[in-house]
């Protein structure tokens, strides 16, 4: 194994969130939500938030590091980083970039964060309101294809066609998320359980996606603080070690107008081999999984491409009973995730993967040593992190 990895060199010391709100329900501006999330993560770590000297985010987050460091009164700002484009596909990558910065010595205490107030700044699920459109959008928007759901339903149709993925498999993913949210006081869907009949009767958003196949839209912020493994052990008694973080996409994953070379993919096929090689673990070692649900169809592709099931057995493996903690064989999205906790653009899923290692998940998987959290499926650039206990470092 090359020494050029983050494994064993860095640790997550703290995680935090603002209150999670339904879309447009936040009484505070997005920037304030980010500050609350960072303060919560610092408190969770037991450190002074002024000691944060680096900031990483993704998806062109609006809350600039200079303003954050200024607001926090940090004595110095040493590292700022933006993971370009691809929306929530950057959630794990932002933590990976923070880990890389710490490993390289660019900064000592780096926070990966995301703030999203869709009330203040507009909905992801709304089409463009303007008279004309050019570029890639000119080939889709005039045909009524303009939201993320409309972009990725097309790919899911072909997945279901090529690999006989059942509707019941999509339903199980959604029901597992809602089941887990019932135990999670942070989840906006706590108190709103989902049964099979309700799923089946729900309206089409864009066939093949029903209402419950589609992520929420929310207001909130989340933060994850990374330090060197050595310093982490001084500040916390429950450091969590990122074993590896990888980002990327395959050949022409960014091709326009649905011309990706490999169409029926979550975009993880080239990312995953590097991920497991760097982490020094394989799919059989993963105790619990957080798989980004923009849409349930993407989760199916992601789990297959991470080696957690196959095209052939996906319908048999991805059942409600198998997907729920603590008894299932493949506990999935144990906080409720983007479907039922909060659409925190995937950073909430990273935090849940970290909590599973610490043991303070709302739906803990007993003895979890290795947890995986991916981000983005089907977008141009995706990312995945694997987290472990000290024992998992080997």
């Amino acid at each position, binding site marked *: 194994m090359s020494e050029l990895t983050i494994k064993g060199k860095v640790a997550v010391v703290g995680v935090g969130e603002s209150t999670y709100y339904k879309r447009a329900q936040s009484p505070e501006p997005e920037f304030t939500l980010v500050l609350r999330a960072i303060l919560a993560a610092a408190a969770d770590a037991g450190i002074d938030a002024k000691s944060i000297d680096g900031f990483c985010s993704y998806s062109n987050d609006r809350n600039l590091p200079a303003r954050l460091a200024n607001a926090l009164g940090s004595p110095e700002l040493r590292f700022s980083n933006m993971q370009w484009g691809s929306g929530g596909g950057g959630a794990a990558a932002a933590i990976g970039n923070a880990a890389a910065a710490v490993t390289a010595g660019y900064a000592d205490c780096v926070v990966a964060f995301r703030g999203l107030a869709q009330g203040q700044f507009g909905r992801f699920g709304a089409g463009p309101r303007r008279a004309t459109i*050019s570029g890639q959008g000119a080939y889709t928007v005039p045909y009524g294809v303009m939201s993320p759901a409309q972009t990725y339903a097309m790919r899911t149709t072909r997945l279901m066609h090529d690999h006989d993925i059942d509707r019941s498999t999509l339903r199980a993913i959604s029901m597992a998320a809602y089941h887990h949210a019932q135990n999670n006081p942070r989840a906006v869907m706590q108190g709103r359980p989902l049964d099979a009949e309700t799923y089946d009767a729900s309206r089409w958003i864009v066939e093949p996606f029903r209402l419950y196949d589609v992520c929420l839209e929310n207001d909130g912020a989340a933060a994850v603080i990374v330090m060197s493994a050595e310093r982490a052990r001084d500040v916390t008694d429950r450091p969590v070690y990122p074993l590896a973080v990888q980002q990327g996409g395959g050949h022409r994953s960014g091709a326009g107008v649905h011309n990706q070379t490999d169409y029926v993919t979550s975009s993880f096929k080239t990312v995953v081999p590097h991920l497991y090689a760097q982490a020094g673990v394989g799919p059989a070692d993963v105790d619990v999984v957080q798989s980004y649900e923009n849409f349930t169809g993407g989760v199916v592709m992601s789990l297959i491409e991470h080696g957690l099931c196959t095209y052939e057995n996906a319908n048999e493996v991805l059942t409600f009973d198998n997907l729920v903690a603590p008894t299932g064989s493949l506990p999935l999205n144990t906080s409720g995730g983007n479907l039922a906790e909060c659409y925190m653009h995937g950073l909430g899923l990273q935090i849940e993967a970290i909590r599973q290692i610490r043991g303070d998940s709302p739906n803990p998987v007993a003895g979890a040593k290795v947890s995986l959290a991916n981000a983005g499926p089907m977008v141009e650039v995706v990312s995945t992190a694997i987290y472990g206990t000290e024992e998992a470092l080997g």
Partner: protein
Amino acid sequence: MSYLAKGLPAPVPAPDGLDAPYWEGTRQHELRVQRCDDCGQHQWGPEWMCHGCHSFDLSWVAIEGTGRIYSWERPYHPVHPALTDQGPYLVVLVEFPQADNLRMLGNMIGDPLQDVIIGSEVEAVFEDHDDAEVPYTLVQWRCV
């Protein structure tokens, strides 16, 4: 007569001129894609360079307006005010065996609730929007 209700954003060529020949072509009821002068590979979406051989010498060539359905979807939820009273509509992704299996998407003419069969042969239907501020033509599809 257009497939979707009026009021969606109108397509215009990219400001840098990259895809102007495509939109000029649809006005003439011609379906154009890029093809590399050096290696002959077709390319879509439009780009300034051939992704196969890195040649900057790309031509716009007309291809036959026929293809086969690669995938489809049926939107119900309106995400734009123009579609509030639209009801469900069909979008198909069409691939072109005659052009290195490039794909384009458009609406499927006919009953929006019809069954769609992946692999079906379709042909282009040019939908003129002559009354737009900058007139344009969309490319829709119907079963052969």
